[in-house]
């Protein structure tokens, strides 16, 4: 059962209808196959690009869709129900456009943003390093001033779309005390990606190291002022976390739908298992978790759309939605019993995919830390 959404414009209604059609007909049928083969569905992103879905929350003058976050996130949610690799990929792409869109100069935006939002290219976001995960400010990759530009040296870790991205939004140290943000072309000399990590889930999405070996980056690819990189990175993550929350709700919804469908058909003791209160209540709790997680991210999105502060709400949404996804997907395996534990059904894959949502874009411990700091400030 697709979620019944309260959408306030006809374009949002039609956009969600288009998204569902693409998700149902073009994405869902091949997800299991791609994930099993660890194959990244690059073509799917071309279709999304052609359909105008790779730049939804950005300004029309730069080729974006000028849609509120409330609408963009629901598109993301629907795509995530069909494929986490696609949902997370769109969320990462959108986040990698954020620094330029919000901190670039008018000239940089006019020159670079249309290609990034236009649908043919795919972005990545390069912040983490081996020793700088939760403690991102400890990053060591260096961008040395050389003439008009910079020379970048160092290794990034865990980069979603590593090796397949056309551009990388990079955080690098421009001095011992300063981190700066750059937009690096994927074809830059001296830039190379390592082999994909062997992951527990999200196996269609390549996650790699990214090596910068004296890679030249032009001075006009610096986004914002030198030294403002950490602030830019954290601001981008605030919005990115809303994306991960929406992905989590899409995944949880898919797991709930699968479990309900199975429970209505599967008979034991002469009756459908959904009629046993022990199981019915489990499903009811799953539904409650999905609905409340959706309400939480929509509330944060509406605040963002209204120009209010939403940092604390974004962390709450990420925490609530990804914990909900972990619980709902685990319970979906339970509802399917032995079948849920096999790879013949997607329940076990959903469960593996849910786990990473509690880890990236700030672990859920870090979300609690962010929420706690907001509380302490008041």
């Amino acid at each position, binding site marked *: 059962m697709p979620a019944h959404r309260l959408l306030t414009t*006809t*374009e949002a*209604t*039609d*956009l969600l*209808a*288009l998204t569902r*059609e*693409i998700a*149902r007909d073009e994405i869902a049928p091949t997800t299991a196959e791609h994930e099993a083969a660890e194959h990244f569905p690059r073509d799917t992103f071309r*279709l999304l690009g*052609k*359909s*105008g*879905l790779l730049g*939804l929350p950005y300004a029309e003058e730069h080729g974006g*869709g000028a849609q509120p976050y409330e609408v963009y996130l629901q598109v993301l949610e629907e795509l995530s129900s069909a494929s986490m690799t696609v949902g997370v990929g769109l969320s990462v792409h959108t986040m990698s456009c954020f620094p330029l869109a919000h901190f670039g100069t008018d000239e940089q935006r006019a020159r670079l943003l249309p290609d990034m939002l236009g649908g043919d290219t795919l972005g990545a976001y390069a912040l983490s390093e081996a020793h700088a995960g939760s403690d991102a400010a400890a990053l060591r990759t260096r961008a040395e001033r050389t003439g008009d530009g910079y020379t970048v040296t160092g290794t990034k870790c865990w980069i979603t779309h590593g090796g397949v991205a056309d551009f990388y939004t990079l955080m690098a140290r421009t001095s011992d005390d300063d981190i700066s943000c750059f937009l690096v072309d994927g074809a830059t000399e001296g830039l190379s990606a390592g082999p994909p990590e062997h992951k527990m889930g999200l196996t269609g999405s390549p996650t790699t190291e990214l090596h910068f070996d004296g890679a030249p980056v032009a001075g006009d690819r610096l986004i914002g002022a030198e030294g403002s990189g950490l602030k830019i990175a954290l601001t981008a993550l605030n919005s990115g976390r809303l994306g991960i929350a929406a992905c989590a709700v899409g995944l949880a919804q898919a797991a709930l739908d699968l479990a309900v469908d199975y429970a209505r058909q599967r008979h034991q003791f002469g009756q459908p298992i959904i009629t046993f209160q022990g199981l019915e209540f489990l499903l009811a709790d799953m539904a409650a978790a999905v609905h409340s997680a959706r309400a939480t991210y929509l509330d944060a999105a509406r605040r963002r759309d209204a120009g209010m502060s939403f940092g604390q709400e974004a962390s709450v949404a990420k925490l609530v939605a990804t914990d909900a996804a972990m619980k709902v997907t685990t319970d979906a395996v339970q509802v399917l019993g032995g079948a849920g534990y096999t790879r013949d059904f997607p329940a076990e894959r959903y469960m593996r995919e849910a786990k990473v949502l509690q880890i990236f874009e700030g672990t859920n411990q870090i979300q609690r830390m962010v929420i706690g700091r907001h509380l302490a400030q008041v």
Partner: protein
Amino acid sequence: MNIVVLVKQVPDTWSERKLSDADHTLDRASADAVLDEINERAVEEALLAKEAQGGEVTVVCMGPERANEAIRKALSMGADSAVHVSDEALHGSDAVQTARTLAAAIGTLESVDLVIAGNESTDGRAGAVPAMVAELLGWPQLTYARKLDTDGQSVSIERESDAGVATVEANLPALVSVTEKINEPRYPSFKGIMAAKKKPVSTLSVADVGLSADEVGLGSAPTQVVSSAPAPPKEAGVKVTDEGEGGVQIVEFLSGQKLV
């Protein structure tokens, strides 16, 4: 060239579909409604012809107010404008009345060269409306097209039926009905969705197209549905385990069903 596409909103084949108990008409509230898939192909074919020949594509739809969603889908794919015949009086119209209404609506448009329709809809499935519309317009009808070519003067199709494939040609104006083999329809883009909001849609009543309310609708329909029953649930199929004579068993089964 100016092309009209006849489009219909139908219950989504992905959702459960029902007839209303009261008058055996379609229970439109019980299922999600979408632009009929075959009509997406008809729109696609019109857009391809427009891209090759120039001109305008107008979609003509008869249906309740809610059918404007199906019209918007066609417009977001790239059609230029729409005519929506929407009138309470139309409820329960049968194939003949529908064809009369559609032909009358086409009559309100200027210089139409080609009408494209789906060969049958996924809900009612009389499969007769395109031919009836052509008859009422007095135009040649080229039905069951799996391929369509037009140079702006004439139209030629590959007509596929149980009897085989034939090439059929006619001078314009003409009506073509297409099968699901005709093409793969494009997805609208978000740009198309935004553009559709600004495209002209004229909503016409039965009187606006020059018919009177007592010529259409359930009350005066030449055909009436007197009873209906849900399709019986599917029964489990026969399983043949091949223990050396599986082939024989299959032939016996088929001949038992009078299929061979």
